């Protein structure tokens, strides 16, 4: 009995010390980040985290913000629904962050947004494109375009290529996929096209032959697959196997490094819309690409660029506001105009979204190829 009591006391003491210590670190501005560092969408989280971390490092090297260093506290939501809510609560109540950066996946942003809104902590999503995210409240922002725009971009692109009959394969477990499919179909029909077949799958599925067999029978000119890279790669492979020769179209959910590794040549001739191209010759982009490559030994993708931009915009807002207090910081972020981001000039509009051009990327011989930029 005595020994276990001592052990208990020792544990309590240790916890107390570790719990109290952070309170004394007052010369830091704590910024929270939640991302999928592991799991099925790990590519999103790791890229955006790399970009964000690089931005924070640069800011700290230049002296920090408002005279203090920025401390990035990152938590992994493991690509699982339900986790973002838990970890954002922890970031806000335990770590006492002044702002939250995240997430790439719209479904996860939708989970965390109400919590940030309730606690009056500004949240900036780097890449969530579903319009509902910023509708959660006036403390929620994003630095990317939204799906009504993205869906229309791809619909117009299909129209331009003469593909009138398009089949749609949606991931019902992701709010992003369902929303984007919706907007695409509206744009397609408005432009005189027709949806030949709608099929569904769930995140994590590995076999799509049943859905693809049905889609093949409907004889489309193209197939719109607004899903995440993990499943899209398998879908492309199986489509090729079943003898489907028409191109696939998609959105920024395709951006992931395992996409081409798993799909191989199955995605040749397909196109998707995204936020950024590493081939963009603007000096700010090429500079970023060089720095990123030197630090991480790989080329940055959209999520990295957006992660970087979201952190920079937060820092710029802090400097403008002169404080990290919730309401003032929120107002400063909302007033962001013409910020020279990696992913384009970023102005936060009245709905707290960014109005930016989309980049259409094609896949040729297993490589990404820039096709065109579409302005809003």
């Amino acid at each position, binding site marked *: 009995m005595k020994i276990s009591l001592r052990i208990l006391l020792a544990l309590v003491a240790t916890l107390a010390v570790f719990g109290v210590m952070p309170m004394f670190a007052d010369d830091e501005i704590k910024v929270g980040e939640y991302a999928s560092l592991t799991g099925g969408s790990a590519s999103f989280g790791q890229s955006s985290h790399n970009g964000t971390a690089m931005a924070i490092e640069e800011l700290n090297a230049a002296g920090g913000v408002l005279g203090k260093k920025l401390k990035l506290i990152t938590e992994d939501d*493991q690509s699982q629904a339900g986790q973002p809510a838990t970890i954002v609560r922890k970031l806000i109540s335990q770590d006492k962050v002044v702002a939250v950066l995240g997430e790439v996946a719209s479904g996860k942003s939708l989970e965390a947004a109400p919590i940030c809104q309730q606690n009056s902590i500004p949240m900036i999503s780097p890449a969530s494109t579903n319009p509902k995210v910023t509708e959660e409240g006036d403390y929620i922002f994003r630095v990317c375009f939204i799906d009504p725009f993205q869906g229309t971009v791809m619909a117009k692109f299909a129209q331009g290529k003469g593909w009138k009959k398009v089949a749609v394969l949606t991931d019902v477990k992701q709010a992003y996929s369902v929303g984007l499919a919706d907007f695409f179909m509206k744009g397609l029909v408005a432009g005189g096209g027709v949806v030949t077949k709608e099929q*569904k799958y769930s995140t*994590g599925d590995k076999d799509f*032959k*049943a859905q693809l*067999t049905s889609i093949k029978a409907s004889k489309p000119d193209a197939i719109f697959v607004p899903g995440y890279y993990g499943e899209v790669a398998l879908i492309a492979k199986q489509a090729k196997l*079943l*003898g489907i020769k028409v191109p696939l179209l998609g959105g920024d959910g395709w951006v992931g490094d*395992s996409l081409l590794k798993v799909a191989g040549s199955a995605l040749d001739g397909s196109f998707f819309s995204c936020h950024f191209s590493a081939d963009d010759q603007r000096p700010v982009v090429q500079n970023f690409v060089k720095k990123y490559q030197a630090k991480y030994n790989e080329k940055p993708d959209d999520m990295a660029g957006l992660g970087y931009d979201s952190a920079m915009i937060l820092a710029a807002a802090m400097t403008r506001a002169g404080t990290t207090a919730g309401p003032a910081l929120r107002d400063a972020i909302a007033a962001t105009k013409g910020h020279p981001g990696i992913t384009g000039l970023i102005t936060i509009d009245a709905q707290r979204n960014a109005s930016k051009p989309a980049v259409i990327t094609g896949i040729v011989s297993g490589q990404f190829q820039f096709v065109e930029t579409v302005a809003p």
Partner: protein
Amino acid sequence: MVDQLLELTQQLLNGLSQGSIYALIALGYTMVFGVLRFINFAHGDVLMIGAFTGFYLGPKVLQVVGGGPGFLAMSIVLVLAMGMCALVGIAIEKLCYRPLREQPKLTVLITAIGVSLFLESVGQLVLSPDPQAFPELIVDKAIEIPTSWGAISSLTVTLSQGLIFGVTLGLLVILRFIVMKTKLGMAMRALSFNPLAASLMGINNDRVISFTFGLGSALAGAAGILTSISQPSIDPLMGVNAGMKAFVAAVLGGIGNLPGAAIGGILIGLIEALVVGYISPTYRDAIVFAVLILILIVKPNGLLGSSEREKV
């Protein structure tokens, strides 16, 4: 009418290969239950180990064999993965389950869950949680079976689907031979009836149990390779889903009953394909688990299981 028959046949063909995978894994569950009377929940994760063995050894085998992907390379990788998984299975049994042989069954059941979580977590830490691309061991082709009636002009079977079914059938035949016609197989069966009597007859229980685990795990390893050939995206959590469905399959066929496990596996595969094709992919998992609940209510010993009466 002919159209619909053709579409049904296509969906069933799709389900057959997935069902074969479940059958292979279910056999492992059922063998261990038969011999030790507990469910080895870590079994599904052995599939993952098999897949990753193939992932790491595949390119090297391809190099040594030369000439690109082909049946020889695939067979070598299959055998290597089966061997690796057999060793892993035997190790798990020796380290985690044997010390608990005298404990109540609940203890070892919870340990099995622990081993499963351990394998998954270590896998994520060591092997990277991102999906990896499995090396191409055979060049997959779609084989069109032309049928001249109806709008569906042909049935499509992929080479990998055919391979999975063929290899599963072959392994089942070998398994039946081992269980029915060899001394070790006879020892396994004796152990499943009465361990005490078996040891009194001179059977080395420990060795037979190790062999059972090795055999079951080898089959799971084969399942891992076969499933990776047709769905080349592998990750440390890939065994969870298949393991659970295979467990349902084993219960459906009658836990402890070998042909039951195989039939249960095929049945679950077919049910899944029908649900995805005709109802909705969203309900696939729900209906499979509803089948589990149903069979436990209506016929708890499974389709081929017989009720065991405790003889006093």
